[in-house]
C-alpha cells in the first residue's frame, strides 16, 4: 500500500485540479459556428434581399440547417469531449436559436426596417444580419465552459 504524507497528498490534489482544468481547456472552441454562420448570412442576404420574402425566409432557414449540420461534423472531430460542455444542449439550442435568429432577421428586415426607413433593402438586411451575428457570437461565448 502506497502511503502519502501531507505534502504528497497536497501535490496529488493540486494535480487532479489542474488536469481537470486542462481537459476542459483542451476541448474545441465552442464559438466556431458563428464565423461560417456570419459569412453565410451576409452572402445570403446580399444576394436575396431583393427577392420576395417567400424566397428569403426558406433560405435563412437553410443557413440555420447548414449551421447545425456543421456542429455535428465538428462534434465528431472533437478529440477531447469535456463534460463541462453540454454539446447536446448547445446543439439543440443552436438549432432552435438559429431558426429564431433567421426569423428575426427576416422580420426586422422586411417588416420593420424596410417599410419604415429609407435604407436600401439590401443594406437593411445586412445591417440586421450583422447585429444578429454579433449577438450570436456573444451568446456562443457566454455558453462556453467554466473550468
Amino acid at each position, binding site marked *: 500500500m502506497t502511503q502519502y*504524507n501531507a505534502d504528497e*497528498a497536497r501535490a*496529488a*490534489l493540486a*494535480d*487532479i485540479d489542474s*488536469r481537470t482544468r486542462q*481537459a476542459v481547456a483542451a476541448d474545441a472552441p465552442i464559438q466556431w459556428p458563428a464565423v461560417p454562420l456570419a459569412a453565410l448570412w451576409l452572402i445570403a442576404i446580399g444576394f436575396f434581399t431583393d427577392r420576395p420574402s417567400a424566397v428569403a425566409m426558406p433560405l435563412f432557414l437553410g443557413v440555420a440547417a447548414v449551421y447545425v449540420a456543421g456542429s455535428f461534423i465538428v462534434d465528431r472531430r472533437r478529440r*477531447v469531449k469535456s463534460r463541462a460542455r453540454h454539446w447536446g444542449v448547445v446543439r439543440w439550442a443552436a438549432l432552435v436559436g438559429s431558426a429564431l435568429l433567421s426569423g428575426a432577421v427576416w422580420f426586422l428586415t422586411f417588416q420593420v426596417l424596410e417599410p419604415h426607413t429609407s435604407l436600401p433593402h439590401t443594406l437593411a438586411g445586412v445591417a440586421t444580419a450583422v447585429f444578429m451575428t454579433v449577438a450570436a457570437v456573444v451568446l456562443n461565448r457566454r455558453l462556453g465552459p467554466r473550468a
Partner: protein
Amino acid sequence: MTPQPDPAQPDPVLSTTTRLSLVAFLAATTEADFASVRDAVGLTDSNLSKHATALEAAGYISVRKGYVGRRPRTWLALTPAGRTALKIHVAALNAILAHTGEELARPT
C-alpha cells in the same frame, strides 16, 4: 472482477502520479482520444499504452477503437467504477490533509 477500493485508504491503482493524472484528465471528459491524453499527461505512446492497459484491467477506464473519416482513433473514457475510485482516492487524500487542517479539493 473489479477490485473494490478501501474507502479509508488511497487507491493503490491510482497511487502513481502518472495514473492519477491520466484518470483526473479523463474525469473531466466523457471521452478523449489517445493522442490528446498522451500529450496532456506528457507520456510516450508506449507508456500511455501500459498505464491504460493497467487501468482497463482494473475496470477504471474503457478503451474504444473507432474511425474519424478514414483515420483510426483510440478513445479512452473513465468508467463509473473509475469515477468512484477517483472520488474515494480524493476523499482519502483530503482525509490525510484534514490532519493538518486543510482541504484542497473536493471529489470530482
